[in-house]
């Protein structure tokens, strides 16, 4: 009797779903967080009797056959790339992305990582870095005597100085784009790295080739909608209970079989 194992795959799948929902809910306040969904697919089918088998010597065939499914599996936990709401912070180095695109940052290993979290800070050397201290690529250094920094929608960074000194352009923040953003690998701390599935990063200026634009003084909020998550949670819990009912029923059937002497 496979019903026990089949129901167990169903329970494991719903458990994964609850874990993904829990992660979404706990990241409701995370800047630039993209919501995740557990995606399921059915497992292999055992062909107990194949459709099309010859059932007599006159050549009649079995029209449908017997196919026994073996349960479900988690096919993917996919990221739903969606624009989150923008929240005004007035932070000079807070950047929100409107539209597609990722900031490129350099990991300590020298590799590139990508993020939509635009809450940048200054390092002791005046470098623009993430909250973890990873520098933005291309590197932008703010002079120590700069009075303020302004960043326009295209990513151009200007420093303004005391007196009537003209603003100085410090550099231009470029954005990365991926053909398949769902294929990016999450590395924690709002960072992602490119994989074979995501394709290589296509670096370019903001506002070109479908890349979004930047907005200084704003941060992109998490795209998690609490109401949707809670309804999903209820669904997952009930589906879990349903699978456990199958286990109970299968167990009782086996108990009945055991009672016959």
């Amino acid at each position: 009797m496979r019903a026990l194992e089949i129901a167990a795959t169903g329970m494991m799948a719903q458990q994964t779903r609850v874990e993904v929902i829990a992660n979404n809910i706990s990241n409701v306040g995370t800047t630039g967080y993209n919501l995740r969904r557990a995606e399921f697919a059915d497992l292999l089918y055992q062909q107990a009797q194949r459709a099309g088998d010859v059932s007599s010597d006159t050549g009649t065939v079995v029209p449908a056959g017997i196919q026994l499914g073996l349960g479900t599996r988690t096919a993917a936990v996919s990221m739903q790339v969606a624009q989150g709401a923008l929240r005004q912070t007035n932070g000079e180095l807070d950047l929100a992305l409107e539209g597609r695109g990722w900031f490129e940052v350099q990991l300590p290993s020298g590799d590139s990582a990508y993020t939509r979290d635009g809450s940048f800070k200054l390092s002791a050397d005046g470098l623009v870095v993430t909250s973890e201290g990873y520098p933005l690529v291309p590197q932008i250094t703010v002079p120590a005597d700069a009075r303020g920094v302004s960043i326009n929608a295209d990513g151009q960074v200007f420093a303004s100085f005391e007196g009537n000194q003209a603003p100085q352009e410090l550099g231009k923040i470029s954005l990365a784009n991926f053909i398949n953003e769902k294929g990016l690998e999450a590395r924690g701390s709002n960072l992602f790295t490119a994989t074979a599935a995501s394709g290589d990063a296509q670096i370019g200026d903001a506002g070109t080739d479908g890349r979004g634009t930047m907005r200084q003084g704003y941060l992109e909020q998490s795209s998690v909608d609490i109401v949707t998550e809670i309804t999903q949670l209820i669904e997952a819990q009930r589906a879990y209970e349903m699978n456990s009912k199958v286990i109970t029923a299968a167990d009782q059937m086996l108990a009945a079989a055991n009672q016959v002497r």
Partner: protein
Amino acid sequence: MDNPIYVTIARQTALQRQMDVVANNIANASTTGFKREGTVFAEVIERLDGASKALSMSSDTATFTDLAPGPVAETGDPLNVAILGDGMLGVEHRDETLYTRDGRFAISPEGELTLLSGGRVLDAGGAPLQIPPDSTRIAIAKDGTVSADGVPLGRLGLYGLDAARLERTGGGLFRAAEQPPAAEQPRFAQGFLEDSNINPVTELVRMIEIQRAYELGQNMLQAEHDRISQVTEIAGRAA
């Protein structure tokens, strides 16, 4: 003499299989595009030697796929598509064409439109759909025309399949016995997905029915066992 036992055992085995089918349906309650499976029972008649009466046993001869549409839910993801009405999408999976109702798409590193679970989505002509790498907006029209930034790339192939001639291969994919005809009037909804078409209440009721029928069978076996022991005892006493 053992006929009642054989008849019951045939029934019990079939019930166990039916339980497996129900368990699989319930386990796939959250699987996008999943189609419910059902079992068909048939009577197997065996003529008894020299007797005019025939003995009838039940046998599960087939499972069938219930192609009834599942509820459609909005996801807002441009790479999600629900098929409204009948028909299945053509997918190239390991060099063969399979069919699915699962509309969760992704884009491969080569820029081809694929299913999230792998397998290239085919257009009406049976060729994979190539998405230009710099495209920003992918639109799927009601008739299945896929376009990137307003440039049409091709139309999704939709095929009319006969439920009786489908073989399940897992991962929401079906194998067809023969090349299916193109579906008439394909209709799609972008940003939506078709949920599993199982009805939890019906499945649970079926499960209870199976369980009770199984217990009934076990009682029948027990009664038959007791009857035979009694006969043996009486016969033993008479000897």
